[in-house]
């Protein structure tokens, strides 16, 4: 016969202080665990959603990032003439030649300088990246020293306001618009006309060439052809892959640190749960004896105590998950180690992360509660009844 579940509930309620302390311990561990998963996921998601499936990007071979890359005009012209590239009705290839430099700007709050991406683009860039939407002001006029800035830049950096000016490359640039690029890397960038920005930094040529491919184009064939073309020194990547690669180092670091910390912390929480459950068993020796005398099996006693431990950690886990899901409203901005530029991203919560947080808590409960439950079930009826 099974011991009613309400028995376990009531026991937890009777020892409220101890129950709450143990639950808080589990909640803290789950919070740290879930928050670090959310952070790594948010970083990846931000970078992955920066790229589009239909776009490919060419950068100089083994240069890893646009900032280090260089593609000259001649190569850019060969690339845009590829037959796989989508064209407008008038025959213009849907391509943007980007010129990317980093400049350092002071942050609004801390005044600490941080690196910001300045991206000079071709006229079709806005059309090729529909995730970038103008929300205030207008676009730059071709051939002028006008720029538009991402929403995250406007919020985080000193002096980055609509109609303000920014100074870089010995030139004053007028901020004529603000764009919202959602949760993508572009939101942390400044955009302008590549033909004006490149000369300001005394650059001839570009950093990367991004091309939209015709539907059904064979990317692998294009890649092989371009990378074996002796006139070209570039490598071709799907845009999504290119940006996903940039989350590598930082996401790995967050994951390793988060896992290490959670595992060590969970040892603490499991020990906490074990102490609580052992105390619960020793305080209730007579009670357990009575239950056994009434005819409850050892198995039922084991089950009841294990259930109590699981319930304890499950509730703690829920608290932890609830607290950490509040973190999704928090935005983190830090230097991405792969690009050396400041990037803003959110904690991102997914059903999978919530599930693993709760599962983690339950595992802590099982491990912490198992030995005490065994002890409870092993008590001899006579000894237990006599102990009071």
């Amino acid at each position, binding site marked *: 016969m099974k011991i009613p579940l309400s028995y376990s509930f009531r026991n937890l309620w009777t020892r409220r202080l*101890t129950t709450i302390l143990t639950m808080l311990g589990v909640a803290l561990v789950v919070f*740290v665990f879930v928050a670090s998963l959310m952070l790594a996921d948010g970083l990846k998601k931000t970078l992955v959603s920066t790229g589009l499936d239909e776009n490919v990007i060419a950068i100089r071979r*083994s240069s*890893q990032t646009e900032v280090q890359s260089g593609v000259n005009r001649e190569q850019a012209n060969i690339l845009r003439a590829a037959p796989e590239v989508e064209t407008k009705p008038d025959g213009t290839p849907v391509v943007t030649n980007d010129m990317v430099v980093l400049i350092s700007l002071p942050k609004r709050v801390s005044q600490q300088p941080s690196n910001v991406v300045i991206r000079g683009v071709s006229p079709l860039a806005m059309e090729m990246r529909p995730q970038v939407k103008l929300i205030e002001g207008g676009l730059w006029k071709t051939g002028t020293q006008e720029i538009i800035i991402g929403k995250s830049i406007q919020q985080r950096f000193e002096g980055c306001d609509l109609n303000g000016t920014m100074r870089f490359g010995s030139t004053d640039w007028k901020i004529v618009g603000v764009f919202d690029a959602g949760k993508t890397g572009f939101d942390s960038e400044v955009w302008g006309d590549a033909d004006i920005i490149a000369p300001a930094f005394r650059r001839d040529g570009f950093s990367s060439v991004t091309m939209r491919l015709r539907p059904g184009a064979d990317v692998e064939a294009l890649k092989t052809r371009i990378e074996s073309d002796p006139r070209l020194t570039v490598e071709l990547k799907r845009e999504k892959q290119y940006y996903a690669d940039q989350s590598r180092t930082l996401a790995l670091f967050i994951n390793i640190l988060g896992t290490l*910390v959670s595992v060590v*912390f969970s040892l603490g929480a499991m020990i906490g749960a074990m102490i609580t459950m052992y105390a619960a068993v020793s305080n209730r020796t007579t009670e357990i004896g009575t239950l056994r005398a009434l005819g409850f099996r050892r198995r039922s006693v084991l089950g009841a105590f294990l259930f109590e431990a699981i319930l304890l950690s499950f509730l703690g886990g829920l608290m932890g998950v609830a607290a950490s899901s509040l973190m999704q409203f928090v935005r983190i901005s*830090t230097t991405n180690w792969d690009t050396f530029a400041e990037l803003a991203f959110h904690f991102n919560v997914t059903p999978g992360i919530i599930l693993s947080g709760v599962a983690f808590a339950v595992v802590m409960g099982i491990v912490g509660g198992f030995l005490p439950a065994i002890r409870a079930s092993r008590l001899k009826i006579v000894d237990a009844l006599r102990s009071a």
Partner: protein
Amino acid sequence: MKIFKLIYKNTLRHPLRTILTILGIAVAVFAFGIIRTIIDAWYAGVEASAQNRLVTRSAVSLVMPLPLSYREQISKLPGVLKVGNANWFGGIYKDPKNFFANFAVDENYLDMYPEFIVPADQREQYLKERNACVVGRKLAEKYGWKVGDRVQLIGTIFPGDWDFIIRGIYRGAEKGTDETAFLFRWDYLNERVREMSPDDADNVGWYMVQIAGNADAAAMSQQIDTLFKNSFAETLTETERAFQQSFVAMSGTIILAMRVISIVVIFIILLVLANTIAMSARERLSEYAVLKTLGFRPFHLIGLISGESMLIALLGFVVGMILMIFAVQGLGVFINENLGSFFPVFELKDQTIVMAFGAAILVAVVAALFPVWRAVKMKIADGLRQIG
């Protein structure tokens, strides 16, 4: 004296519970120490930097070069002892995963870094050969390099394959010196760049300026920056320490997160210990009533409860410290092999031990507060009536 015996006996009353609590605290102390050590590793570069060296770089951002002609102009300033120039090379050894710092430096550089100890004969050889390089001891150990070995790096910023011959292995003069750098000759870099793209030759990443010991670093920095004000490439000069600090600041958010975690872990210690003390005190309320009847004063009870709390916390601290000393060594080996170039120095600081000790004492006091308050306030009659 009786009270100490009582504390000791009380602590041993539930040996399993006491051992678990000590273990719980030890794990948390251990986690605290590891996280602090990781944070310290971040600041190792800042600590190792000298106050009499200034770094002059482009005011736009670190990726923007400065002209070679600045070298002459800076060295003419009064108070400047020596000027060296360097370029970040960012080469890859076989695979992008094998990251280590590699940069091109001119002939003055090694003189300005007395903390990099290169044997005199090796140094002479290095200065004789164009494609010679000097590598740190730890880096050489990691890849099994010996003097005379040939090493090829793949350029990311400077395209192509670059062959070097190891002519020297340096050792750090102090514990905090980075022994994972790869230095090669700036003239070799410049020569090849001139062949490939003459426009990019004679570009310098940053200048290292050694100033007289008694010179005012801030005034000197200002003087250098004024020299190039309103030129195409304006400069930003700061002490090497401030320069290193600005690198650390880029990852400020991550470091902040780790600091928060190191405080959270103290709360976990608190929860585990508070739970145990509260539990024990609750079981012994009737004994406290007996003690009160016998004429023991409140301060005896305070001593009894907080003494037990203190004893357990201190034992936990000692066990945690022993764990930590071994782990930092073990982890040090692991980090050296895998992340050595990100964290060249990974060592336990005395300060960390003191902080962990302080945290253990504080936690012991806080954990005893509520049980002490309850035991002191309790009426004797209520206490005697209490059933555990």
